[in-house]
């Protein structure tokens, strides 16, 4: 009750003012038969310190990344977040504001989003980016829906190397919207080009490939692009690890049509997977088909530059059932975090960060490969994730790592039984050489190869 400021006495005075004798009078329109005649069955209210204790007790039952070095990626990445990022994006003028419907009083957020859009364009080398979507998985969905268009029909080809959770999500929407998904198999941990070529038909609206793919491997995007654009399909590039864009060629460089990415890597806390940050970028000519908010630059009646939400006729609140998407609330605050993150790292820092990931991941891969029984599952180049065949069941290894307060790699067999015992490890710039060594030593002990 603490957040309701007005006292009983004040509320009584207000009731008198509106001509009611009690709150009951105001609730009269609610028929008795649907009234709840008992208190809600919820735990009783707690004072603030008791709530804090309760939540702290819950929080401390989880293995946080400060105390458990993690070699797990698979869609969520433990990158360093500069101290300025949370201290700025948590300023309350930002986080307690709504979508900037009245731009004159929301210039701060609007300008930040305009900067965000620009940075996403820079990272991806695409022409336009929107103000964010929910997360990477739904961004892939939106991209696909955009490619499929208002009819909702047609075929979409998707690589089996797309994050399994993303594929699962896509499947639901494909069913509901009514288009067909065709999955393309793998070759050496990457999308099979031959299978891709076979899967594409005249009805194919889009080809979806993740890059780096779920196994961390780099795809042959130029070949994929050729095959895709040889038909009239759009090339949708999914990215779960945008840190890779500091060193690998961006989608714009290989003519992608839409980029649908997860932006958590860019300054957002991992937060058990949410809130995450859907990035969405495309070519200028497609912008009026794009989902989500867009911020544009304009001028005011005094001739000053200002920023507004624009091209809103694509959106649900104007176009209703003919909108390009149903999205309304998005992930602005995380877009702001990403903006501050990218400004902090900057041109040099972002590149340097990506190179650290690359170097540290390769160092780790080479070190682990020295351990008997561990060998690279694939031979393709990778960024900060790599799959290793393991000499023992992956779950057994992970359980033993857990006992050593290490979060192990992703157990590939959860989604790819075809690869047998294998772990997908992730090593970002946040891992130290010591931690890598601790992991390797632990793996040696666990698999009995320690001398």
């Amino acid at each position, binding site marked *: 009750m603490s957040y309701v400021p007005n006292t009983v006495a004040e509320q009584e005075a207000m009731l008198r003012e509106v001509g009611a004798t009690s709150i009951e009078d105001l609730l009269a329109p609610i028929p008795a038969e649907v009234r709840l005649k008992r208190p809600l069955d919820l735990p009783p209210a707690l004072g603030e310190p008791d709530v804090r204790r309760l939540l702290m007790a819950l929080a401390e039952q989880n293995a946080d990344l400060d105390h458990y070095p993690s070699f797990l990626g698979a869609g969520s990445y433990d990158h360093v977040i500069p101290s300025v990022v949370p201290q700025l994006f948590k300023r309350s003028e930002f986080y307690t504001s709504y979508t900037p419907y009245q731009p004159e009083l929301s*210039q701060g957020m609007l*300008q930040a989003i305009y900067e965000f859009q620009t940075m996403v364009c820079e990272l991806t080398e695409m022409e336009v980016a929107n103000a964010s979507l929910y997360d990477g998985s739904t961004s892939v969905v939106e991209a696909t829906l955009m490619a499929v268009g208002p009819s909702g029909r047609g075929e979409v080809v998707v690589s089996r190397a797309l994050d399994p959770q993303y594929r699962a999500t896509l499947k*639901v929407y494909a069913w509901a919207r009514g288009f067909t998904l065709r999955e393309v198999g793998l070759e050496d941990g990457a999308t099979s080009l031959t299978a891709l070529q076979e899967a594409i038909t005249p009805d194919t609206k889009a080809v979806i490939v993740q890059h780096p793919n779920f196994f961390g491997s780099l795809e042959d995007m130029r070949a994929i692009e050729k095959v895709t654009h040889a038909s009239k399909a759009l090339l949708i590039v999914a990215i779960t690890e945008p840190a890779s864009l500091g060193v690998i060629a961006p989608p714009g460089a290989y003519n992608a049509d839409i980029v649908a990415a997860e932006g958590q890597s860019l300054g957002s806390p*991992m937060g058990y997977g949410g809130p995450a940050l859907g990035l969405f970028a495309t070519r200028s000519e497609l912008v009026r088909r794009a989902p989500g908010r867009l911020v544009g630059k*304009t001028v005011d009646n005094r001739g000053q530059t200002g920023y507004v939400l624009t091209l809103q006729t694509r959106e649900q609140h104007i176009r209703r059932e003919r909108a390009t998407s149903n999205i309304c609330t998005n992930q602005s605050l995380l877009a702001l975090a990403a903006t501050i993150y990218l400004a902090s790292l900057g041109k040099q820092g972002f590149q340097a960060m990506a190179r650290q990931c690359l170097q540290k991941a390769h160092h780790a891969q080479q070190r682990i490969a020295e351990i008997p029984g561990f060998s690279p599952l694939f031979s393709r180049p990778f960024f900060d994730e790599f799959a290793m065949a393991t000499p023992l069941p992956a779950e057994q290894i992970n359980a033993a790592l857990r006992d050593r307060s290490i979060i192990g790699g992703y157990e590939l067999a959860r989604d790819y039984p075809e690869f047998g015992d294998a772990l997908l490890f992730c090593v970002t710039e946040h891992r130290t050489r010591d931690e890598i060594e601790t992991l390797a030593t632990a793996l040696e002990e666990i698999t009995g190869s320690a001398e």
Partner: protein
Amino acid sequence: MSVEKLIFEKGAPGRHSDVLPAMDVPEQPLDDLLPAEFQRATPAALPEVSEIEVVRHYTHLSQRNFGVDVGFYPLGSCTMKYNPKINEETASMPGFARIHPLASESMTQGAIQLLYELERYIAEITGMQRVTLQPAAGAHGEITGLMIIKAYHESRGDIHRDIVLIPDGAHGTNPASATLANYQTVELKSDKRGGVDVAHLKEMLAKYEGKIAALMMTNPNTLGVFDERIVEIAQLVHDAGGQLYYDGANANAIMGITRPGDMGFDVVHLNLHKTMSTPHGGGGPGAGPIGVAKHLVPFLPGPLPAHGREGYYWQDAGPQSIGRVRANFGNFLVLVRAYTYIRSNGPDGLRHISESAVLNANYLMQALKSDYLLPYDRTCMHEFVLSADRQKALGVSALDIAKRILDFGMYPPTIYFPLIVHEALMIEPTETETLETLDEFIAVMRQIAREAREEPSLLLDAPHVTVVGRLDQTLAARKPDLCWRPDVRAGRPAEVAETANTR
């Protein structure tokens, strides 16, 4: 406050912060690790600024923004109430903020327990059987709910139901979501009291017999009016074989008073970023969990949090589940805030919130209806909708009124929504506003009504004291400038800024 340049217009080549860890592994030649054809040709042209520049820039931007912490924010349908600070504190705990969604269940017991309990709280508040916490926002909940309804009908072989009925006052996400789920939408008229026109409903049910998949409603609806005939409506739709979807964006009016489940709804979404006071973050993140009645539980997305002898775990979705609607488990840190809020308020607190929200809205409505047209003049719930039609006759619009409100250091109401009210001003004060603030808003609105009569130019040229004046929306849409162009960055930053500012 002077103009704030873009971050790209600041800094200088080579400026940077030292925010990276030591590069402590032996460095290998880049080409050995990454064949040239995979390498990026030119680095992204991100800003080159020092730490102090980053800090001042975004501090300045924050100063150019307005939040609930700064003042009154009566944005109807958005429930912009006070966002308790303790929620920010709990959501920042490393044991919540820094945990990996794919870490093993034994390493995330606290997180699963929290979600397990939160699911049950939401089920109780909405009167539903079970809840999925996956949807990231209200609209996401809507499409999820509609897909569940679709799966339900399909599971019964009832495959010709391709129509969703939506009242004319509904939020735009409702029809947009219906389209997304491949439904056709049919608009239901409102009656004179602002509720669903039951005659029209009956007509449509008859017309589309066997084809009605669902009715989507919010109750109280977007006029802030509680539809007294809800039981009858539910009965009608159910009798016609349809399902009832409850858009819970307006649930701030009803907690502990009435429950969608008890009204007869089959699916409900709650906007936790409204009712449960998780901050809206300038546009998000939110969370739009949906609860379903018993018969729909098998279709819920999975996994769902469960509890067994070994502790908490994620139970995979059953065979009838639609599948997952996003990666991972939902906007977890938003859910932590909502959990904190529910535990802080308890059952009595939640009811008191809703009652107080209703009282504040009625208080404002009574005070303002002499100066502004109140198209539906009856007791409201948590919000109400005025029309600026009288002012329009004097040549000023709802937009002008909204812009003028800005000059008083307040955010304006939602305008031009719902569509069924001309020149709508949709006002939701929320329960966390003091009597003084309400009185101040009343005074401002009265003054503006007077100005509209006596000095309309004050409104037409408004706002006057904001960092920018009224912005040209048409220009923005006609010549979209959505992205700062790196190619104009060649000149000295300051010069570029000038150019940019006057183009």
